[in-house]
């Protein structure tokens, strides 16, 4: 009889022009109820203009143990940043 309701991740768009941002999660029996629960839980003070709910189980997350391998290689690629290039002061708009 009692089946645990699945978990849903809630994303809110604060206003048009901005992307949806993760706000938290809710438990709900189906997608429609998840939206309703998200609305009641996370947007009681005009937090947004649009909601997304995504089954938490559908999110594939990277393993924290892999973080170094995944993200550290970017650390020594300083040439991806504009400050790496020295352009004399007198040269403008570049």
């Amino acid at each position, binding site marked *: 009889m009692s089946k645990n309701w699945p978990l849903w991740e809630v994303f809110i768009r604060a206003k*048009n*022009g901005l992307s949806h941002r993760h706000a938290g999660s809710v438990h709900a029996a189906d997608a429609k109820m998840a939206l309703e629960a998200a609305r009641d839980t996370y947007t009681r003070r005009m937090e947004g203009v649009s909601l997304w709910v995504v089954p938490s189980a559908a999110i594939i997350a990277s393993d924290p143990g892999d973080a170094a391998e995944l993200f550290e290689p970017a650390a020594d*690629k300083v*040439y991806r*940043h504009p400050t790496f290039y020295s*352009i*004399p002061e007198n040269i403008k708009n*570049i």
Partner: protein
Amino acid sequence: MYTTELKDKNQKPQVAAVVEDPERLAAFEARVAADDFIEPKDWMPEAYRKTLVRQISQHAHSEIVGMLPEGNWITRAPSLRRKAVLLAKVQDEGGHGLYLYAAAETLGTSREEMIEALHSGRAKYSTIFNYPTLTWADIGAIGWLVDGAAIMNQVPLQRTSYGPYARAMVRVCKEESFHQRQGYEIMMALAGGTDAQKRMAQDALNRWWWPSIMMFGPPDENSPNTAQSIRWRIKRETNDELRQKFIDVTVPQAEAIGLTIPDADLKWNDARGSYDYGAIDWEEFYAVVRGEGPVAKERMQARVKAWEDGAWVRDAATAHAAKHEAREAAE
């Protein structure tokens, strides 16, 4: 450029067949006029959607095809530093293409349709990428001028009215900032080098200047859809306005490193507070739009070959995913 309708001059403009509900249309127009953003699930007129699909996919194609002229020099970059930098830049352009394809997909077109349109020659991309990169100095000229023009064009697009496009542009502009600097740095090094190097830099500027200022598209009087695009805030400045801005900031940059802009009519106009410039050869521009650019065929051949050569990798990935799905289902 990216906000320019790249069509053959003789091609008829498409007439919107759909008659929109006047009330919805009025509400839409009011929102856009108030600088509100339109998001994928919002109602929008068909012509707005069509214009965006065309513009965003052309922009995406330009980023992807734009990898080819520079990719051509990765193995021949003069130092390991220059090679790493060029590789990083080309990699960024690939990413720009992907952000933009994804933004276009929110309008109900598929990646496959867009790629098919590019490969079959139906879709256009920026005319600039149909010119050859003959020397290392061309890589400097591209970063400085072509990315410089792209930035000029893309900065106002961060406030374009369609949310996903605007957000893609924010990301692109942030990444774009090193592209122009690395190009100018190459030009600076060559311009300060031996006589031969200096000549090489000047020659690259001579060949890339006019195509670069053509990137902004036809003059405003020959750009019939600009007014509508500006009204819908898809476009925020006209072709000629952006072109003038670009010329005004670029001329002093050339002078500072002792290079000469190849335009005998270029002259500072005190009254206007801008440079006057010579007549642009629009016949050349329209010829390149029609597909007659010097290396247009090579570009498309390289694109299609890359796609076809990659087919086995896509097939293998699909087969691998299917195998795992079957295995999991069996468990």
